[in-house]
């Protein structure tokens, strides 16, 4: 009898255990199916609207980066002609593309449109023509990882800018930062991975929180085109100068050691460095980074719409969204917080403009010295001082948020830039006197962009004409090519709802 009861009890217990196990498995699977996608998103799917079918709220907030109505003291999403605002830039970049055209960047939505329209990319008349390499496309959108996957990384960099007008048509979006399988953050650009390798770090060890900044650091950094990369000679290979470290001095030493220069200044003939936008590097030296705050925490905070929460993909100045960005941690009034930011920026700008003034003078004085017959030997030291001073100016200016992200570091950088530039001018005064010129060098009138561009000898009429012709003749043709190519890709529905 006892055994029979045990037999029955065991059956019941095992049966119940089985039920429980089945319930656990079922509930685990529920989690997987809770999210019902509409389409299958392929690896390297470049079309943002395709991702948008599965993630409509994120996609629609991304579309808001098209808004250009918000301007801050020195940032925002409005298009601003920086050369017009400060014509000294034209002289500082004489002989380099930025003296032709330099606008405040708009939202990610315009990444492709703006690079098509800038004078810096010229007016190529064929796919082999034009002043810029394909490398310039690297950060412009999710078509780039697609192309790199198809062609190979070096092969992509090797092409011309014009060659890719018909290829890169989707602006910075989903596939640049996300894995289509599970929407995890991922790095799609080789330069950041290579820079981590060069520093002896493994990017795969990054935490999720670090990734919320690193996906931004794929592009918002200082970089250069390395044409001497072993095995890839002659290819303008996108590289970050981080081997010695990420500070302004470390990167300067890196460039000096390899005798790299982006261009030779047209007036002073100094071997110049162009700082791109070392936003990530300066952010890391600031107090927010020190407290573990990521880029996304402020630039894309949580948002709720109709009772649903999601990450706001309207990447923008946090000053346009103080309530959800700053005030999550800082319980002060919004106006107070904004004026705190502006205070930092205005103070940095005050020093920066002083440095600009001295830099312009040192270029023009160096030009005068050449005119009076100075020798290479006499100029060498002076030109290095100018190079270093301008690198420091550019480093602090090019990353618009830097004076907020890290005000103390930027003050240090600007201060050291001032010292270098003054050093150059002292040496120049002595040299000019030696050459028999012992009075102030006359300064040209550069009060407007046009006057400054004329002074450095730019034929703006011709440049504008070339661009217009490109926009009228080549661009529509290449965009049509892209449209036809994309129309063949199609979309794979997986919905169970219809």
């Amino acid at each position, binding site marked *: 009898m*006892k*055994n029979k009861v*045990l*037999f029955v009890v*065991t059956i019941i217990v*095992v049966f119940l*255990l*089985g039920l*429980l*196990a089945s*319930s*656990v*498995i079922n*509930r*685990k699977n*529920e*989690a997987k199916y*809770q*999210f019902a996608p509409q389409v299958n998103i392929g*690896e*390297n799917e470049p079309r943002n609207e395709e991702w948008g079918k*599965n*993630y409509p*709220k*994120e996609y629609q907030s991304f579309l808001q980066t098209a808004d250009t109505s918000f301007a801050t003291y020195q940032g925002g999403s409005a298009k601003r002609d920086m050369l017009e605002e400060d014509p000294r830039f034209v002289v500082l970049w004489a002989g380099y593309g930025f003296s032709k055209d330099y606008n405040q960047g708009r939202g990610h939505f315009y990444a492709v449109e703006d690079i098509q329209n800038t004078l810096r990319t010229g007016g190529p008349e064929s796919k082999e023509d034009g002043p810029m390499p394909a490398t310039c496309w690297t950060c412009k959108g999710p078509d780039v*990882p697609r192309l*790199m*996957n198809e062609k*190979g*990384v070096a092969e992509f960099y090797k092409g011309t800018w014009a060659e890719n007008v018909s290829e890169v048509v989707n602006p910075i979006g989903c596939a640049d930062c996300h*894995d289509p399988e*599970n*929407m*995890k953050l*991922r*790095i*799609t650009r*080789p330069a950041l*991975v*290579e820079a981590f*390798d060069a520093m002896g770090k493994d*990017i*795969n060890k990054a935490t*999720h*929180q670090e*990734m919320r900044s*690193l996906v931004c650091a794929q592009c918002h950094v200082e970089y250069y085109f390395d044409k001497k990369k072993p*095995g890839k000679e002659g290819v303008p290979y996108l590289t970050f100068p981080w081997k010695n470290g990420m500070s302004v001095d470390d990167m300067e030493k890196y460039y000096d050691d390899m005798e790299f220069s982006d261009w030779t200044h047209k007036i002073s003939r100094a071997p110049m460095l162009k700082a791109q936008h070392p936003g990530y590097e300066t952010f890391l030296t600031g107090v927010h980074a020190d*407290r*573990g705050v990521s880029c996304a*925490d402020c630039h894309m905070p*949580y948002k*709720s719409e109709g*009772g*649903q*929460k*999601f*990450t706001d993909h309207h990447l923008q100045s946090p000053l346009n969204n103080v309530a959800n960005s700053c005030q*999550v*941690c800082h319980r002060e009034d919004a106006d107070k917080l904004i004026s705190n930011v502006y205070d930092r920026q205005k103070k940095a700008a005050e020093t920066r403009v002083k440095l600009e003034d001295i830099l312009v003078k040192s270029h023009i004085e160096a030009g005068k010295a050449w005119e009076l017959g100075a020798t290479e030997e006499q100029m060498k030291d002076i030109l290095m001082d100018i190079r270093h001073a301008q690198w420091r100016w550019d480093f602090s200016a090019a990353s618009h948020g830097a004076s907020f992200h890290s005000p103390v570091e930027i003050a240090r950088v600007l201060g050291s830039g001032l010292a270098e530039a003054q050093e150059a001018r002292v040496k120049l005064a002595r040299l000019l006197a030696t050459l028999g010129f012992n009075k102030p060098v006359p300064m040209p009138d550069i009060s407007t962009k046009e006057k400054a561009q004329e002074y450095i000898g730019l034929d703006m009429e011709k440049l504008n004409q070339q661009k217009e012709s490109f926009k009228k003749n080549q661009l529509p043709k290449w965009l049509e090519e892209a449209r036809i190519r994309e129309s063949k890709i199609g979309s794979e529905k997986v919905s169970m709802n219809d």
Partner: protein
Amino acid sequence: MLKIINKILPKKDTGWRSFAVFAIAALLGLGFFLMKEAEVVSYLSDNPQACVNCHNMTPMYNSWNHSSHREWASCNDCHVPQDNIFNSYYFKAKDGLYHASVFTARAEPDVIFMQPASQEVVQNNCVRCHVQQVTQTKYDGFIEGHRDNRTERQCWSCHKEVPHGTVHGMSSVRYNIAPLPTDQEKMVIPEWLEKEMESK
């Protein structure tokens, strides 16, 4: 103990004996399988991802992960007593079994509220870390009535949004995918890029 086992277990030479051994093995095997499927071991840790084993916790996990508490406090730091290890695990087990029963019975509400016992734990944990803010006399003058509020009310009756925000419930996170504790793959670069980097 042995006595009881001997009492229940059938006599050695009967056919029932082999059946009993088999039945016990089946029970144990099924039990282990269940433990593995339910990720039982993960509940012993402080890893917040253990809490998203149960997908009902996705909104809580994600809202915490986007809050400033993320840097300092895990789920356990607030929701489990931290006075001693026995109390911690006792409370955790009690709470966990309650959660598991509700979840298995599919009786979970859309919006989850804390039980009174939990509320007490959380209140104590708020004070545990923020003791300086809530007991310093200078703050009593600075924020009117802070002392009374501290002793007579719960912290979150004013600080409603800490740390989970103001929007609650499963329906609030439709497009939000929580990291699965079983899905801990660390690669952050796509395969094609990994291959390309290796080939160099």
